[in-house]
C-alpha cells in the first residue's frame, strides 16, 4: 500500500478511537442525528432548516439535509482541528511528519468525513428499515455532489489557514456559515445576464444549482454547467490547498505554530 493510504487508515482509526472514547458523547450525537432524521421522515421538514431549499419531496429534503450538515462539518473540521491541536500541543509534533501539512490534514478531513458519512448512512438505513420508507438516489447526483464537496474542502483549507495565522477564529467560523448558506441556497443559475456567470463562478454554487436541477426541477444534467461545477470545485480546492501551504510556511517562519 502507498504511504498515503497507510496515513488515511491511521487517521480513520484515530478518528474512530477518539470518537468512541466517551461512549455517552458518541451516543448523544447518534441520538440527536437519529431524532432529526426521524423528524424529517415524520414530515417535520422545518427541522432541516436551510436544507429545505432542495425541494418538498422526502428524498430531496433528506439528501439536502445530509449535504448541508456534511458541508458544515467539512468546512469547520480542519480549522477546529487545528485550533484544538495547537491548544493541546500535538500540532507541532504532528507537523514533524515527512508528510506535508496539506496531505496530512486532507487525510484527516477525508477520514473524519468517511466516519461521519458512515454513521449517517447507518442511521438512515435503520430508519428506512423501521419506517419502511424508500429513498431515491439518482446517480446523476454523484458528480455535482463531488464538485460541492471539493469546494467545501477548499473553503475548509482557507479557514484552516486563518486558524494557523490568527488562532482564534470562532467568530469567523460562525460568519462563514452565512456565507455557506448563500453559496448553497442562492439560485444563481436563475440570475439574469452576466450576474449569472458571476454567481456560477463562486465556490459550490454551480454544483448546488445542478443538485436543484435534478432533485427539484427533475431536469437532466446540463453538461456545460457540470463542467463548470467540476472546474470550480477543483479550482477552489486547489486555491485552498495552496493558501494552506503558504499559511503553514508563514506560521513556521513566525514561530507561531504552537501558540494559542
Amino acid at each position: 500500500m502507498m504511504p498515503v493510504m497507510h496515513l488515511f487508515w491511521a487517521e480513520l482509526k484515530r478518528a474512530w478511537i477518539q470518537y468512541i472514547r466517551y461512549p455517552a458523547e458518541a451516543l448523544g450525537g447518534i441520538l440527536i442525528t437519529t431524532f432529526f432524521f426521524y423528524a424529517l421522515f415524520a414530515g417535520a421538514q422545518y427541522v432541516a432548516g436551510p436544507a429545505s431549499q432542495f425541494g418538498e419531496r422526502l428524498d430531496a429534503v433528506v439528501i439536502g439535509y445530509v449535504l448541508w450538515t456534511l458541508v458544515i462539518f467539512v468546512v469547520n473540521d480542519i480549522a477546529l482541528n487545528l485550533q484544538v491541536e495547537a491548544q493541546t500541543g500535538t500540532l507541532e509534533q504532528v507537523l514533524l511528519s515527512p508528510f506535508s501539512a496539506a496531505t496530512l490534514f486532507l487525510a484527516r478531513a477525508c477520514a473524519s468525513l468517511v466516519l461521519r458519512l458512515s454513521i449517517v448512512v447507518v442511521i438512515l438505513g435503520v430508519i428506512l428499515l423501521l419506517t419502511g420508507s424508500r429513498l431515491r438516489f439518482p446517480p446523476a447526483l454523484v458528480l455535482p455532489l463531488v464538485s460541492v464537496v471539493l469546494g467545501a474542502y477548499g473553503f475548509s483549507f482557507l479557514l484552516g489557514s486563518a486558524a494557523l495565522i490568527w488562532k482564534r477564529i470562532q467568530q469567523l467560523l460562525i460568519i462563514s456559515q452565512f456565507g455557506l448558506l448563500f453559496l448553497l441556497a442562492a439560485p444563481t443559475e436563475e440570475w439574469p445576464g452576466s450576474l449569472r456567470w458571476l454567481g456560477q463562478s463562486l465556490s459550490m454554487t454551480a454544483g448546488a444549482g445542478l443538485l436543484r436541477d435534478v432533485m427539484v426541477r427533475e431536469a437532466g444534467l446540463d453538461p456545460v454547467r457540470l463542467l463548470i461545477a467540476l472546474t470550480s470545485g477543483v479550482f477552489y480546492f486547489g486555491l485552498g490547498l495552496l493558501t494552506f501551504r503558504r499559511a503553514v510556511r508563514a506560521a513556521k517562519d513566525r514561530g507561531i505554530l504552537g501558540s494559542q
Partner: protein
Amino acid sequence: MRVLGRDPHTVRAAGVAFPGALAQVGAVLEGNRNLYWRMTPLQNLEYFGVLRGLSPRTARQRGLELLETFGLREKRDVAVQTLSRGMQQKVAIAVALLHQPALLLLDEPTLGLDVESAQAVKSLIRQIVASGRAILLTTHQLDIAEALSDPVAVIRQGVIIAQAPTGELIRHFAGAVGTYRIELEQGLDPWRFEQLARQGVEILGSHQVRFSGPPETLYQVLEILKPLPLLSLKREEADLTHIFLKLLY
C-alpha cells in the same frame, strides 16, 4: 518552535519522496501534550509511526519493543490521560524514537516531574545516548544540564555565548580563582581573625572560613592558621548555575 534557516520540509533529496533531514530527527517538545490523550500508548505509537512513514506493521512492532524497553508494557492499553506525568513523558520519548532517528531533540524533558520520575527519565536519556543516538537537550534546569549534557552550550537571546565540554567549562571557571572552605577543630583567636580578614578571607564562624583566590595565596592563609589543627580543607566546585550567572551578568 521556530524554524531558522531552511525548513527541512522544503529540502528534498533527489529521488527521495520524503525529505531526508526530518527522517533523522525525533523531537519531544516542552509540555506534556505530545500525545493524544484519548488514545493508549500503543495506539499513539502505532499512529505516529505511520505518520513518520512506517508501515502499520513496523510501527506496531517497534512500538511494542519500545514499550518493553521503557518498562511500560503493563500500561500499553491504558488511556494516556490516566498515566502519570513521568510515564507520559516516557511514551512521548518512545514516540520520538519510532523512526529510529540519529538525533533526538528534547525540550525540558524533566520539567514538572516529581523526583522519582525525573530520575527515571534521566536514566532513560542516558540509555538512549548509550545506544548511539545524539541528543540535543534544551533546559532551564541547570542541574539537569550538568548531569546529562556534554558538551554544554549557554544560549542568551538565541545566541550561543559559551560552548565547551561540560567538565572543561566548569574547570575553566573554577580554574583561575579557586574557592576553598577550611574547617578548624578549635575556634579562632582575635589575632588570627584580624590577619585572616586582612587577606580577604571570609569568616563563616569561629570554626569555619572561606577563601577565594589563586592557589599560591592559599598557603599564606594556611601560614596564619598554623599550627591550629584542621578538620578539612575543601575546594568548592563551580557548578553550571554559577557559571550561567557569571556569563549572564
